[in-house]
């Protein structure tokens, strides 16, 4: 138990250090894009509708369980077998509720899929177990893998306390950098197996499928660092290929881009060994 308390103390300190990571988090966060706020709004709307239905249905059940107890001498009304009126009502009301849910959901979906008018395009390739980001038209291309300290701590028997590692398992060597307020279109594919690119604060998740190109878009409203993980089981180290997106102001982004161009030799590696080791289907 004292170990648990120590864990709690650790969490408290992390909480102070980084307000984005609250312990005992209960709910989704609204995030920093139109799509994430839309997902959050829809989530909350449906949640409250479900809570309301739950109150009515569970209320009726609990009332029955208290009121019509055999031990309190309740006599069953065995003539109550069926009532067309009631049955029509409780079929119609859910249909009406569903229409109210379907409308915002359909609108949201149309927005999610609207890739038009993108300011820039980044190609993401998932590999076992890292991401490659290719800024199309910018000649910037780099790999993003789990940070060294996390990678050391996550080994079985490493003896390193995960609480001592900042952003344990959610830190990378080279984060994706994007400008704020720009519509970023991501093209997703994979070199070996299916991965999925997901940063909760950006509000979109898409599978990266070998041999196919998927797309998603986001427009970050706030600067900051946002973290996510691969969201499709992709083998042994599926849990260890995080995603970090740094949203910078336009000027800072331009500076970052210039810095990337400065040493061009470093930023153009070939396909990693992991890619050729995978997918033996045709060989």
């Amino acid at each position: 138990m004292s170990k648990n308390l120590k864990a709690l103390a650790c969490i408290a300190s992390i909480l102070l250090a980084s307000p984005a990571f609250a312990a005992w988090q209960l709910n989704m966060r609204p995030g920093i894009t139109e799509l994430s706020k839309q997902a959050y709004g829809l989530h909350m709307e449906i949640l409250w509708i479900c809570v309301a239905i739950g109150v009515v249905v569970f209320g009726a059940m609990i009332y029955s369980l208290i009121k019509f107890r055999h031990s309190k001498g309740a006599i069953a009304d065995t003539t109550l077998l069926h009532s067309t009126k009631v049955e029509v009502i409780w079929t119609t009301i859910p249909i009406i509720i569903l229409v109210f849910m379907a409308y915002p959901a359909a609108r949201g979906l149309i927005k999610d899929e609207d890739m038009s008018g993108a300011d820039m395009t980044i190609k993401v390739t998932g590999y076992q177990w890292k991401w490659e980001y290719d800024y199309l038209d910018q000649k910037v291309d780099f790999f993003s893998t789990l940070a060294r300290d996390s990678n050391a701590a996550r080994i079985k028997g490493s003896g390193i306390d995960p609480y001592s590692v900042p952003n344990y398992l959610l830190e990378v060597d080279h984060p994706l950098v994007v400008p704020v307020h720009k519509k970023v279109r991501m093209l997703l594919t994979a070199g070996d197996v299916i991965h999925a690119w997901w940063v909760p604060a950006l509000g979109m998740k898409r599978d990266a499928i070998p041999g196919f190109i998927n797309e998603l878009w986001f427009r970050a409203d706030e600067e900051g660092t946002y973290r996510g993980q691969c969201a499709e089981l992709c083998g042994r180290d599926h849990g260890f290929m995080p995603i970090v997106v740094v949203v910078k102001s336009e000027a800072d982004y331009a500076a970052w881009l210039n810095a990337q161009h400065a040493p061009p030799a470093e930023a153009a590696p070939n396909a990693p060994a992991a890619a050729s080791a995978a997918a033996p289907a045709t060989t």
Partner: protein
Amino acid sequence: MTATHIADANAHVHSNSHEHDAGHHGPMKGWRRWAYATNHKDIGTMYLIFSLVMFLTGGLMAMLIRAELLRPGIQLLDPAKFNSMTTMHALIMVFGAVMPAFTGLANWMIPMQVGAPDMALPRMNNFSFWLLPFAFTLLLLTLVVPGGSPAGGWTLYPPLVLQTGDSFPMAVFAIHLMGASSIMGAINVIVTIMNMRAPGMSLLKMPLFVWTWLITAYLLIAVMPVLAGAVTMLLTDHYFGTTFFNAAGGGDPVMFQHIFWFFGHPEVYIMILPAFGVVSEVIPTFSRKPLFGYDAMVYATASIAFLSFIVWAHHMFTTGMPLIGEMFFMMSTMLIAIPTGVKVFNWTATMWKGSISFEPPMLFALSFVFLFTIGGFSGLMLAMAPADFQYHDTYFVVAHFHYVLVPGAIFGIMAAVYYWLPKWCGHMYNMTLAKTHFWLSTIFVNVLFFPQHFLGLAGMPRRIPDYNTQFADWNFVSSIGGFCFGATQLLFVYLIWSTVRSGPKATDKVWDSAAPIGLEWTLPSPAPYHSFEEAPEIK
């Protein structure tokens, strides 16, 4: 272990079959009774015991998973082992625990509920059961094969699953055997129901458990071959150079997902419809009131079965379908809420103005209705594609499907066992123990799975062996709930074992104060070896 009792049962010659039983013998002695079993009760018993063993095996794997996830950091299982534990846990629970349990219940109860002496096809019945031990031996042997057992998730998505080592064909053949077993079980159920009902029992007079199983059986026949086909295509992709699921050869990995979920979504209902049936038997009995809206219940079940075929791609919203496809699958999925709602409302209306008592089967049925409904709510949330882009492949999904499968399917099975066990073995069980099992299970299943909603909403992906410290608290709670829930199930095993061996004699109606309706209650307890040797008359 039940041998003596069934032999006992045979001694109780059913009153109206006195003059007809001259040509009937009791069960064979020793191992032959089980190996050559053609009796629906013997086969049902074997199915149920098999299911219980698999439940404990899969449960043990779940305990290992929860132990690894107790704290951040890797303590017990390296990531590859962890992945094979999640994969094997799912395959064993779905195909080894839940499905055989329902087939066992069908074997025991369908002949007794439709007034038949036995199942229609007893030798196929024997074959369909005896495939299972071989299927699961094959599957479990993958744990000791070089390269490890399948670790690509129970959904077997290529290309990842094609990286499995030598255990891959073993898993595929195990699935083939399970599928063949399920199909045969389903054919037997359909033939029995269609041909062996007592005179006067029209389809719309059948008990709800029989109805739900009839519909389930059609689902099984429709989709198990689809799964068999899908895994066979994986096999040929792996070993014979086909490229069904490989883009480099003109195939498509996502096509596997379409085929898999065309099986997978009806499969979800295969695992829940018979539980609906059980609950629809138990709630009226202990409310002392017939089921409200019987016809609506039947039509709702059929509607759910139909809809289950046109919603599969809601498992695949993130694969990048065309907008119109996402719209269709979102809307069709939402429609399922309507017939499911009808069912919950009908159960509630059955209790309304009833005379309710809280015997263990009723407790489990009530817990089922409450907690399954919570699983239904999260299902509705997951149907909303724009929100699903956030929920997909997180612990929110894990919480959702465990709510519909554990306090859903498994509690349905437990309600059935507590409802009919005295009829099967002729002994009453210890009520206090059964209620203790109920309360501990219900409390801990919520401690186990409710926090997983929070984890998913906070952004924890599923199928990861280790996590950021922000997820530590709820994982700790969930694991503690898991260990307690797991330990509680040992009570269940003990209760069944001790009840089958001994206990106060159960009456023919078992639940006398509730006067249960149904042909099974007109038989003595324990039920005779050949349930109805002479067909009862239904008015």
